């Protein structure tokens, strides 16, 4: 029963349930075919379509670890796609690799500047992160519109299309990009001391400063990081549809990303963070979107369906809730209640500890 205590057990369980329920509705859900040297199938599709959310969730995880939040990631995605498509449209030969790479670099650079702006507002001017990033969330789409001149820009560039829709070694390039980003983030936070310092700043900014940590620099860094990853996600999205749509790109992705981070076990109050958790959270959310379509949930109720599953998952993750529901069948009810109070008292502490004995009660 120890596995039940693991932070990622419930998100993983929901993922499995979603995948199995897909099987019921489409027999060949787990089939993976190799065609023209590319892997195809629903599972591959999930990996491919998770990529932008995984990227955005990675940045969001680090921002949240410092106790902040970044609402502007969706707008940054729009900006990145808009600039890339505008510049590619101006290229004399949009199929040449070199110029396209330059364009991609320029788009990401602009996003890094956007991240610097967010970091400046939060760390230097001391504006609350939710407000500071709200500015760019609102203004960013305007900037993107400005870049595209209010149009949806369509582009035809083979190299550009590879980012979002291409394959390499039989795997979707977007999936490979996301995998590389995850590896980079893990290396950056756990192979260096950055992760520790981040958690320290998120855990207590005052104590961190007195311990000599340059919290301002670290804070700016995570916002730049988040915007950079959002920029790459924007390129994937825009490349996949071969156009820049300033309104649709990254719409509401900030909320999905926050949800992914929270499902993955990182608290919004900052401090300890889990990259694996956020990645799992992002995959769960994407699978949920795909499942809604494949099981035939009517389009108008898709969001409702999603909400219901998320609520169930959150309740399953809540130790207090499980104790309440399952405690009813327990003879030692008083024990459970007492444990509840204790837990409420040390909310932030390791709440899972006293769960073991309770988890086997319902059976």
């Amino acid at each position, binding site marked *: 029963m120890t596995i039940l205590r693991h932070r990622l057990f419930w998100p993983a369980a929901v993922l499995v349930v979603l995948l199995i329920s897909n099987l019921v509705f489409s027999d060949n859900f787990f089939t993976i075919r190799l065609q023209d040297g590319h892997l195809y199938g629903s599972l591959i599709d999930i990996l491919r379509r998770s990529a932008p959310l995984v990227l955005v969730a990675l940045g969001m995880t680090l921002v949240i670890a410092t106790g902040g939040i970044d609402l502007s990631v969706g707008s940054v995605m729009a900006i990145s796609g808009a600039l890339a498509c505008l510049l590619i449209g101006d290229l004399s030969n949009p199929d040449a690799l070199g110029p396209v790479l330059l364009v991609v670099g320029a788009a990401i650079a602009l996003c890094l500047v956007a991240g610097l702006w967010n970091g400046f507002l939060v760390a230097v001017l001391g504006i609350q992160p939710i407000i500071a990033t709200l500015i760019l969330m609102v203004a960013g789409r305007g900037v993107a519109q400005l870049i595209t001149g209010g149009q949806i820009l369509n582009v035809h560039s083979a190299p550009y299309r590879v980012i979002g829709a291409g394959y390499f070694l039989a795997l979707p390039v977007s999936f490979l990009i996301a995998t590389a980003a995850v590896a980079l983030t893990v290396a950056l936070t756990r192979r*260096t001391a*950055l992760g520790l310092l981040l958690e320290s700043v998120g855990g207590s900014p005052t*104590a*961190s*400063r*007195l*311990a000599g940590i340059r919290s301002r620099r670290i804070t700016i860094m995570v916002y730049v990081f988040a915007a950079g990853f959002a920029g790459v996600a924007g390129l994937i999205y825009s490349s996949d549809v071969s156009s820049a749509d300033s309104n649709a790109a990254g719409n509401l992705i900030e909320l999905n990303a926050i949800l992914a981070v929270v499902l993955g076990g990182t608290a919004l109050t900052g*401090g300890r963070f889990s990259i694996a958790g956020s990645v799992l959270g992002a995959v769960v959310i994407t699978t949920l979107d795909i499942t809604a379509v494949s099981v035939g949930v009517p389009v108008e109720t898709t969001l409702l369906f999603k909400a219901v599953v998320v609520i169930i998952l959150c309740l399953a993750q809540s130790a207090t809730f499980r104790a309440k529901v399952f405690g009813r069948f327990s003879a030692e009810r008083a024990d459970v*209640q007492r444990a509840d*109070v204790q837990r409420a008292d040390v909310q932030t502490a390791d709440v899972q500890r006293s769960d073991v004995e309770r988890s086997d009660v319902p059976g």
Partner: protein
Amino acid sequence: MAEQAVLRMTGIKKIFPGVVALDGVDFRLLPGEIHALMGENGAGKSTLIKVLTGVYGIDGGEIHLGGEPVLFAGPLQAQQAGISTVYQEVNLCPNLSVAENIFIGREPRKFGRIHWSEMRGRAADLLARLDLDLDVSAQLDSYSLAIQQMVAIARAIDIQARVLILDEPTSSLDASEVEQLFAVMRRLKDDGVAILFVSHFLDQVYEIADRMTVLRNGGLIGEFTTAELPQMQLVAKMIGKELAALEQIEGQARDATVNERGTPIIEARGLGRAGSIAPFNLTIHAGEVVGLAGLLGSGRTELARLLFGADRADEGELLVDGRKKTIKAPRDAMSKGIAFSPENRRTEGIIGELTVRENIILALQAARGWTRPIPRRRQDELVDKYVKALQIRPAEPERQVRDLSGGNQQKVLLARWLLVEPRLLIIDEPTRGIDVGAKAEIQRLVAQLADGGMAVLFVSAELEEVLRLSHKIEVLRDRRLVEELENGDDVDADRIMRTIAGGVTS
């Protein structure tokens, strides 16, 4: 006699994963007595209180309140049964008003809505009982920590309490405020309230308590009448050995003379910050322990923070090794070999959710920068060394630091700074709220460090401690450094007290 006990706990047992926190403890409280619960940190005092107030369940034993067996499912139930608690750390909402804090959760109502005027009126009456004249609609954090503590007590006594538990209520109060609190306690005692009092200040315990129960390592040592247990014997019972160690330091540090005066490590010339501390001159040499004495709020902490760059000075200059330096931030100070362990260890010192290991290496890691992580094996070596050297308990580096007792958290902080091998260590109230044994260990450590050539600026509200350790004592009053005393036979607590009180003109 035993039958009259308002509260009786028998054979209480509480087990945490891996630890027996309480092992068959008996405890009783008589109406109209002040009963001190004594023991070192980790002896089980806090656990016993939490069991009593329903925060924790028990794994064995019985609790009787007024003769009835009780089992509280939570603090609220305990409160309703007449057991009120004021915890060590002020447990109020700083952003709410004084009146709201007193009545939170049980606001007087009228037609289902909060009856604000009655609430404010009753709050003012209550505070008047404590001889406090506050604006009850002012936000709580506009008052000092001491006043906030009094508000917490006001809140506790308003709930018609049969049993009032005061867990380290005096640790942030100055002498006159302690007297004020004691007056209130005596009045409540005369009203028949049973008061459970926990304090590390033995003098206070002897002043106020009628009886005491001593715990050690989760076990019951005994119940005593205060008048019949001399202070030294009490200490011996608490730590389980004689306190020769403490006395040893005494002679030692005082006799040690700092010979080579030479260039001071640090010299402040007219350093000051408006509204915080008046300009002061101060020199600290290698191997010297400089004590800062003064009342709460006299500017001790402010002076220390200025030297470390935690606050920025707005006038004067600071010389390090005789050369002028600007220290604008803690990092600047660290790069010049200055370390600072702050007064408020829970909010400014430790980072609760990180482990003991991570907390210990934090300052060293910060100094190296994030790109140069300390290899894990090196971390483990360092942490292991200091956990052993400072006897940090439990000796589990991967445990969250917030699970440790106050004394051990303080040791973690000291370890953090010793790791960076500072030349000047500033420690602000390192022994506040920690037990006698740990206190002696920390004092011994300070003496040792100074012997090894480190300069120490030691801030403490306890004069005995300052006298015992310091070569030189700086006395502060009203945010001004008023006198510098070379420690010697002619200097004693009385002498310093007079300066603090303003009776000596120098």
